């Protein structure tokens, strides 16, 4: 098990680098579906992972408890659970808590235990702090992930959850008995960490509130992304570059209220040469985005699939150093590292989307138009 560093000072920011497979599948009419197809598709790209990480984010899995925050918490030892639950009980009204059912398996050597809690912030605490409940949840999650040894909140959104660990994705799906869940959107990841051994918390997707991100690549800009987010109150505890993507999405989308198409332009901005050539109003907007959010530019090869309720996006770095492809058939949107994974479950497609570097694929619930960036650039005004 990965030993956690006691003094996570500004210079101890070990990260885990990797190259991986991504697969996302969304029903645009919110129809929920089983694990069968997404797990099949991600396992089709076995070559891109190495068994040191697999994971899923599933949206729409807890419809009966959709008003409550669903915390999935990973515990490295029994003591960590006691410590974290003390915090949770102090800060939240917990309406239901249970161990996440897993399959007995010889595949995994000493897996951590996973618990889930359905909870809401204590009203009195919320009043004292005078913040939105989302902000309250983010702060508590940061508190546990950076402050409680051996406990990691791996997802904290409503009506969604993350399941992940060391193994090939299909093994992880088995382990968490994902065939018992149904969701309208699945984000899947197979991991190939290279520089450090994988650990359970380092598997993807990474999640905060209902954002989840699966990532293929390596962020050379991680050092500055992390320091910027720390300045904004996000503590990076998972030792992997992907974490910063999830927090950056939360910061920009929720706290700064920036539309996802423009967030894509923060992560993978146009070149100055392109900005200089834009019409004056656009130029102002895009120059301002780069000047103000330059520290959140994600530099280095990446492709990501990110999602929140009702929205799934795919994005690559501006040089497109990692693969990404989108496909549609009927009400389904697929985003994948490789076309073969999509074709393995949907041999014929109505539409195939092959974005250029820095172009975003956006799928929105009940919106059958799948957006690609060029339509956006024309409608940004300063």
């Amino acid at each position, binding site marked *: 098990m990965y030993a956690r560093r006691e003094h996570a000072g500004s210079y101890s920011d070990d990260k885990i*680098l990797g190259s991986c497979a991504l697969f996302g599948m969304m029903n645009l009419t919110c129809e929920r579906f089983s694990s069968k197809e997404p797990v099949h598709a991600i396992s089709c790209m076995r070559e891109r992972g190495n068994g040191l990480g697999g994971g899923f984010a599933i949206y729409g899995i807890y419809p009966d408890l959709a008003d409550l925050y669903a915390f999935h918490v990973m515990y490295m030892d029994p003591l960590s659970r006691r410590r974290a639950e003390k915090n949770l009980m102090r800060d939240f009204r917990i309406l239901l808590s249970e161990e996440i059912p897993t399959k007995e398996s010889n595949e995994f050597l000493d897996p951590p235990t996973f618990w889930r809690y359905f909870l809401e912030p204590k009203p009195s605490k919320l009043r004292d702090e005078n913040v939105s409940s989302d902000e309250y949840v983010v702060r508590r999650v940061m508190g546990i992930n950076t402050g409680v040894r051996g406990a990691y909140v791996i997802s904290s959104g409503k009506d969604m959850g993350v399941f992940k660990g060391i193994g090939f994705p299909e093994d992880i799906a088995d382990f968490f008995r994902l065939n018992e869940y149904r969701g309208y959107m699945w984000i899947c990841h197979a991991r190939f960490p*290279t520089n450090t051994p994988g650990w359970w918390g380092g598997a993807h997707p990474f999640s905060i509130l209902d954002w989840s991100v699966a990532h293929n690549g390596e962020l050379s800009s991680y050092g*500055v992304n992390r320091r910027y987010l720390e300045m904004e109150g996000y503590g990076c505890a998972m030792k992997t570059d992907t974490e910063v993507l999830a927090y950056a999405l939360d910061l920009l989308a929720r706290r*700064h209220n920036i539309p996802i198409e423009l967030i894509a332009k923060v992560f993978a*901005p146009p070149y100055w040469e392109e900005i200089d050539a834009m019409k004056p109003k656009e130029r102002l907007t895009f120059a301002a*985005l780069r000047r103000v959010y*330059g*520290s959140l530019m994600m530099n280095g090869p990446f492709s990501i699939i990110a999602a929140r309720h009702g929205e799934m996006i795919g994005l690559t770095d501006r040089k497109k150093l990692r693969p990404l492809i989108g496909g549609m058939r009927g009400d389904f949107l697929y985003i994948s590292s490789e076309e073969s994974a999509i074709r393995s479950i949907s041999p014929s497609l109505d539409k195939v989307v092959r974005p250029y570097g820095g172009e975003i694929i956006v799928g929105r619930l009940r919106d059958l138009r799948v957006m690609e960036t060029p339509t956006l650039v024309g*409608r940004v*005004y300063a």
Partner: protein
Amino acid sequence: MRRYLLPEYIVERDDLKCTRCKICVEQCTYGVHNYNAIKNMIESRSELCVDCLRCVLFCPVNAITVRRNPNVYKENYHWTYEFITSIKRQADTGSALLSGMGCDKQNLTYWDKLLLNACQVTNPPIDPIREPIEIRTYLGGKPKMLEFEFNDEDITLGTKLGPCLCAETPILFAAMSYGALNLNVHEALARAAVDCGTYFNCGEGGLHPSLYKYSDHTIVQVASGRFGVDLKYLSVGAAIEIKIGQGAKPGIGGHLPGEKVSDDIAMVRMIPAGTDAISPAPHHDIYSIEDLRQLIYALKETVEYTKPVAVKIAAVHNSAAIASGIVRAGADIIVLDGVRGATGAAPKAIRDNVGIPIELAVASVDQRLRDEGVRDEVSLIASGGIRSSADVVKAVALGADAVYIGTAALIAMGCTLCQKCYTGKCPWGIATTDPEISKRLNPEDAYKRVVNLVKAWSIEIKEMLGAMGMDAIESLRGNREQLRGVGLTDRELEILGVKMAGE
């Protein structure tokens, strides 16, 4: 009184090669070489030589060699040559020792203990010859976040950003005043700034009217002497810099002896010709941070908030706290000038002993501003002894937005760091206002050399960025993950915020 000083250098001449062309006689401004017509020989007075190497480089037959005087005092690790010489000089004159250029002491350079990262396997290095790598750098204040307005499908930017500088490379030319330097040097720097898409800082001696045409690329400085400051001067530059301190002489103002104050310099500085131009040590309207705030806003009001205002301080022990105050006082840019920062003249004791290395100052200021959540509201310029593109890259990785270069630009023009700028006899025609000697510096030639230097460094910066897998400099800014230290203590690594190599 007989002087007890050993000649520092020995000037040797290969008399068989020497053609008696007398170029060395003409070139030496210190009177080392003299032609003896009776003997038909050129004689050299070694004790006057400052090792500027002008004669060596200009001798058409390579007949001259300058080397350190092999006569040394008895070896003593405590009483070194420098201390013995200094004492003897002071015993002769009874005055404070002056020196030019920056501190030349050992053990104050951390750049050489920092190493950069490069991509291998898991992400691809980027080839700057084939792919765009962006080093454009905006300098100025910024809001913490942007607000957008949404109407149907339209997205409109609602936040107005403040004024800023846009440099095409993170290298700017540091403040060096007209008076310390002559107009040819200023013109060369101004033209180079235009060519390189960057900025030249005119220093505290005002801006010559003939250079107003380059003012879009000029940062005008307001120092404690207020020389040359009027409405036109403030309005004409691209930015205004308040000089509180200077790395070469923290706690002291600039001194320009009356002998260097010619008519033209007097006109630009707005003082009578021949008078000493002594900047007070403090700004007498700034005795604390709230007064600085008033000056910052007085200047902003004057130019109607159209230009960013920078504040330059010397890197000293509590720079981090001072910098934090400066941000809150409303500055858009903070300039940190480290102990290696140079000068035309400074008391040697101060130059060599006051201030801290820029590497440590940048690291601690950047961290402090982050701890307080205000780092991105200002830009940070590191200054003082930047010698190479690698120093620039390391400065940016530690947390600077850009750097100022002064000494490096002068070296490009010909300076050999003989450290005698305060004599006003600079044989390279740089740190002199003597009209005859100033002619030695051809602004056309000097400007090209400086442009070449900046272009060369910019290419190297792109190479290093590309090797680290980054195609834009904003991803390097404050990215200490890209640095590793060697030969440093844990405490030094902690203050620099970098890991040990191998970690």
